[in-house]
């Protein structure tokens, strides 16, 4: 009898509690996210002493995951440009922190692996793949600079001698809570490119972790709440939409469910199609000349976080009156000079530059001969023109800088910047020492002389899509106060006035 009562009680509990939860949305919310509750997985019921130990546990079920990852740009940091240039973080030089080479242990904090500290990293290792950097849902997974992508599992002073104590992370708790990627996961690296929040891209910073509609209509945390992967639709861990393989002009239709596509799913057209303007059809006449982003991202860096617009390395290394590395801040408390990096110009709510872009990007790579002149060296540049039939007018951020080069060999140089050693620039502020080590690390000749050249790099603006009401209006581009430099775009004047 008693057993019967309890059996009924248990059944009631099983039915009523979930029903109550269903009413509150609690259980269904979790259930809808996944059919697997990782907190119940046997392989995760243990303490982990390192990242690779967690990966080993992941691989017991996700047997092919590392093999998939090994084929991605996120793992290889390498991309072969259609014109044959070998690109990717591993190879390119930029005008922010210059290069990954000679700075692996710091830069690979953002690699999706463990242990890439030099050029001997084992890219075939399955346990070196870091699953948690993309699949952590707790927001507590952190990789500290200088540890070659490894995580802190016991109290550590970072950097050594700094007095900054870093707490260990709870790998077991994090592993048991893994899930789909979110803006927080991607943002942990992509929001902080170039060495800080918003520094590099201008259209990506931590304000996008939980943005409102005014900042981004798609990622609006109170509305559509897109994850990065909603547009960067990933298959087999291959994430489309890399800036190394851009689609300047998508002439395809909106992607339909159930139909297979080989085209880039991250373009605006892949959802909105070719004639998205229903109320003012005239605007559809612009889509063969103007990228959607041009009108719909009127300014970038508008989430309250400044982006770097220029970076002058030539002034780095100054000491203050106290003999310590100098730092200067602006009225808002933002660093505009540091001995470690030089002078910066910051920008918020920046009106983009505009240029024709056909999807091809050409890079100045390490080893390419460069000449110092009045014109800046283009670290990369977008190709395209008004008449090629393949280009659209795109919004871009132009990053300007002055960076070190070898005036005798006429090459941009590799700088050994970070590291707990006597040759790192951030330790000794000695250009010749730091460049010597940097150049040796890649087996390149160095004359022993350092000079500085002006450089420019170009970054597409494609995030921070504003609500339609905030999109550019006709007069924002056309008319006497319009923002377009028509002559630079190849027109005699404003084309609305008939000047072609």
């Amino acid at each position: 009898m008693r057993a019967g009562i309890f059996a009924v009680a248990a059944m009631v509990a099983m039915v009523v509690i979930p029903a109550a939860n269903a009413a509150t949305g609690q259980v269904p919310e979790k259930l809808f996210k996944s059919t697997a509750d990782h907190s119940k997985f046997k392989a995760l019921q243990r303490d982990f002493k390192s990242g690779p130990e967690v990966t080993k546990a992941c691989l017991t079920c996700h047997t092919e995951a590392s093999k998939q990852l090994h084929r991605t740009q996120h793992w290889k940091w390498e991309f072969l440009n259609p014109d044959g240039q070998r690109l990717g973080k591993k190879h390119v030089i930029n005008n922010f922190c210059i290069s990954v080479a000679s700075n692996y242990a710091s830069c690979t904090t953002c690699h999706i692996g463990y242990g890439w500290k030099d050029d001997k990293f084992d890219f075939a290792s399955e346990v070196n793949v870091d699953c948690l950097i993309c699949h952590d849902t707790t927001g507590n997974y952190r990789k500290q600079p200088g540890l070659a992508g490894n995580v802190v599992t016991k109290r550590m002073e970072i950097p050594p001698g700094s007095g900054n104590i870093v707490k260990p992370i709870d790998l077991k708790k994090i592993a048991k809570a893994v899930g789909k990627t979110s803006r927080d996961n991607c943002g942990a690296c992509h929001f902080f490119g170039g060495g800080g929040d918003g520094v590099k891209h201008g259209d990506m910073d931590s304000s996008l972790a939980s943005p409102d509609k005014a900042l981004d209509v798609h990622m609006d945390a109170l509305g559509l709440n897109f994850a990065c992967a909603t547009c960067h639709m990933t298959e087999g861990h291959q994430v489309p939409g890399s800036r190394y393989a851009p689609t300047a002009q998508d002439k395809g239709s909106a992607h339909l469910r159930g139909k297979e596509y080989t085209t880039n799913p991250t373009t605006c057209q892949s959802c909105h199609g070719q004639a998205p303007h229903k109320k003012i059809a005239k605007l559809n006449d612009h889509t063969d000349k103007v990228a959607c982003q041009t009108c719909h991202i009127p300014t970038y860096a508008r989430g309250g976080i400044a982006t770097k617009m220029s970076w002058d390395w030539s002034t780095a290394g100054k000491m203050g009156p106290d003999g310590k590395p100098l730092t200067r801040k602006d009225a808002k408390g933002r660093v505009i000079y540091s001995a470690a990096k030089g002078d910066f110009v910051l920008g918020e709510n920046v009106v983009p530059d505009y240029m024709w872009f056909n999807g091809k990007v050409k890079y100045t790579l390490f080893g390419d001969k460069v000449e110092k002149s009045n014109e800046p060296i283009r670290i990369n540049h977008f190709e395209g023109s008004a008449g090629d039939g393949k280009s659209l007018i795109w919004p871009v951020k132009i990053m300007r800088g002055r960076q070190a080069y070898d005036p005798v060999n006429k090459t941009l140089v590799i700088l050994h910047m970070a590291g707990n050693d006597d040759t790192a620039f951030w330790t000794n502020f000695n250009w010749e020492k730091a460049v010597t080590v940097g150049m040796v690390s890649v087996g390149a000749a160095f004359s022993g002389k350092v000079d500085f050249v002006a450089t420019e790099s170009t970054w597409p603006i494609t995030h921070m899509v504003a609500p339609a009401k905030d999109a550019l209006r006709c007069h924002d581009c056309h008319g006497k106060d319009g923002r377009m430099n028509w002559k630079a775009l190849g027109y005699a004047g404003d084309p609305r006035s008939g000047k072609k």
Partner: protein
Amino acid sequence: MIKQPSPAYVLSLCLLGGSLMASAANAADGDWKRGRVYYQYVCTDCHKAKAGGPIAPNTRTMADWTSYLKADKHAKGKESLKKYTSKEYRASIKATNKAAEKYADIPDEQLFNDIKSFMLKGAKDGDSPASCL
């Protein structure tokens, strides 16, 4: 003689206990992302507009926040903190506040827990100290 419980009785206790434990575990484990959104778009927005500026989670320790939340005092003790996360309050502002509208139906305790999760995680000594924009 001690009577052994029947297998059905043991099973029913386990199921009942399991269900209750699962429910309690869910309640204790808040959704920090939802908490972040509410903190950002209700608490912080209101503090910015009417209460002298935002209070970033990383300006207090976990212990500070725990005792603050437990005390349930707001506006220097004049009113209940939980009032501002209650369904009633959300209903009163949802016409003008999208976060309140979006989370209008979340049970009070659950939403409070979500916010608590975010604040403790974002505390000065939390796992992921959080500032306000």
